[in-house]
């Protein structure tokens, strides 16, 4: 999805939400997103949602959020892919229902959320907005001393740092546990620490209370270079944009340094008190995806951390080879291409939504779109999964081919950034050629639609023997 000039956000609630649009507008401004709103309240929401000619439909929202007060449990409102449901009980749980609700205002005016809590509610809803407009983040870069444990390992020693079940060590322990949970559901972790490598890595490897180990980190930067250089290195190694990174560091000077030099990085407002670290982490709602917000985690989400560690190990191996071919051979890669099915469709949709770099057409599709393509005789949808000696990378690529008479038009062709540089795309193009031959097609037409991020894949078709014609179209005549 290309970023619209104005995000269109619909807010629906069976109670009064006057003022919420204003509060959400302010929150959107913080992430440089200009937004306009449609609001429907009370009984009107049923008509808006269910009627095909409602004002809501005419507004054509990019995202619709329906608020519920957790009690009504209204069966008139169907679960729908285009409407996200936010249950106020999450807000109540965080701030206390008796604080959020003034029953007098509720009885008289059906106001469930007191005005002073509207900014907090707006903050909660930003999880949906960030996920929808690809402003969410994938990776947490972590300092070590006084961030993952109390004290400075270089001075206090392995046994002198605070990390155990008593205060203050338990604050760091819980912070780590929470990070581990995020890591297990697919958030990438990395270390950015100014330290003696041996001192610090010994804690990571051997400390009995350490929750995060080497295999939880996709990139480990422990040296005496500055944090800016370390974070850049992380982005490079993990192959993600700086705008995918959240940085945690107890040192205010380091935070300021990174804020100034790398404005794309989200620098967490780390409190001075380690007792508040956990809360600071939980206040960051940048890690959700449209799927995780519905409680859906694809297999790839759950395996992602492992896969990034496999990638780190592969990169370490790569540095030992001078020849690219030898390196690829040593990886013992197995590429499997198969037709989309119920198990792979959610991941394929996710890839079309998230892949920015190696994506030839950058067409964004919802799960329902992919499902329709898969059912449609004129389309063929394929997933690509890759294994190598370091592990299973899962589904890392996808393509969609459309049969147009005697032509095959490649509608979508993409690869996850994790596996760029392994020539997997060549195998995918070969596969399309074989398919074309089988079908007796005369021509394959591929397209490269340039975006600010996808120049890396501009030559895919050229490298595979396609001839270029105008409009970034590439053609291959099937012999």
């Amino acid at each position, binding site marked *: 999805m290309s970023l619209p000039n104005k995000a269109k956000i619909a807010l629906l609630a069976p109670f009064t939400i006057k003022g919420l649009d204003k509060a959400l507008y302010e929150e959107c401004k913080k992430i440089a997103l200009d937004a306009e709103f449609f609001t429907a309240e009370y009984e009107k929401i049923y008509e808006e949602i269910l009627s095909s000619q409602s004002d809501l439909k005419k507004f054509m929202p990019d995202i619709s959020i329906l608020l519920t007060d957790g009690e009504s449990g209204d069966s008139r409102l169907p679960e729908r892919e285009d409407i996200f449901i936010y249950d106020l009980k999450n807000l109540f749980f965080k701030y206390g229902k008796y604080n959020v609700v003034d029953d*007098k205002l509720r009885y008289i005016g059906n106001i469930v959320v007191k005005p002073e809590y509207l900014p907090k509610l707006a903050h909660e809803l930003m999880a949906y907005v960030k996920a929808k407009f690809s402003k969410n983040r994938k990776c947490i870069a972590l300092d070590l001393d006084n961030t993952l444990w109390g004290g400075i390992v270089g001075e206090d020693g392995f046994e002198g740092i605070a990390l155990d079940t008593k205060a203050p060590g338990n604050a760091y322990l819980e912070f780590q546990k929470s990070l581990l949970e995020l890591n297990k559901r697919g958030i990438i972790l990395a270390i950015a620490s100014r330290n003696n490598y041996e001192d610090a890595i010994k804690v990571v490897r051997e400390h009995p209370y350490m929750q995060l180990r080497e295999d939880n980190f996709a990139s480990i930067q422990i040296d005496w270079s500055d944090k800016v250089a370390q974070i850049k290195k992380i982005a490079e190694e993990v192959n993600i944009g700086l705008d995918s990174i959240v940085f945690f560091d107890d040192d205010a000077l380091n935070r300021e340094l990174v804020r100034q030099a790398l404005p794309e990085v989200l620098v967490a407002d780390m409190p001075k008190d380690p007792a508040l670290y956990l809360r600071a982490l939980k206040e960051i709602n940048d890690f959700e995806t449209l799927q995780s917000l519905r409680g859906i985690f694809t297999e790839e989400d759950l395996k992602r951390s492992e896969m990034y560690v496999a990638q780190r190990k592969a990169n370490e191996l790569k540095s030992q080879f001078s020849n690219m071919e030898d390196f690829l051979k040593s990886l013992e890669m197995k590429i499997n291409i198969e037709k989309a099915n119920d198990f792979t469709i959610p991941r394929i949709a996710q890839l079309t939504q998230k892949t920015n770099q190696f994506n030839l057409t950058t067409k964004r599709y919802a799960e329902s779109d992919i499902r329709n393509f898969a059912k449609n005789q004129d389309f063929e949808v394929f997933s690509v999964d890759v294994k190598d000696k370091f592990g299973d990378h899962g589904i890392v690529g996808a393509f969609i081919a459309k049969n147009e008479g005697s032509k095959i038009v490649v509608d979508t062709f993409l690869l996850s950034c994790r596996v760029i540089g392994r020539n997997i795309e060549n195998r995918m193009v070969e596969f399309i050629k074989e398919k074309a031959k089988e079908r007796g097609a005369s021509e394959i037409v591929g397209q490269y639609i340039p975006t600010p991020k996808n120049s890396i894949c501009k030559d895919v078709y050229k490298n595979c023997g396609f001839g270029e014609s105008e409009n970034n179209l590439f053609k291959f005549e099937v012999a």
Partner: protein
Amino acid sequence: MEEKLYRILGESFKADIKTINDSSSPETIKEWDSFAGLMLVDKLEKEFNVKFTLNEVMDVKNVGDIKRHLRNHGIKI
């Protein structure tokens, strides 16, 4: 205290303080609709550190009523 109340009323209803008196009501102040009225309740409760009851809020027809209920809660106005 009266000054404080009028300042809050002026802010809440975007109205000129000079035009507000005891008989000012939703009929005479344009911005005073039921929602703005409830927002005012919330604001008054915070600023004067009181809690109105459901019936007190329902009873308010004009600024004079607000003063009367503030007095009930010990505010000298």
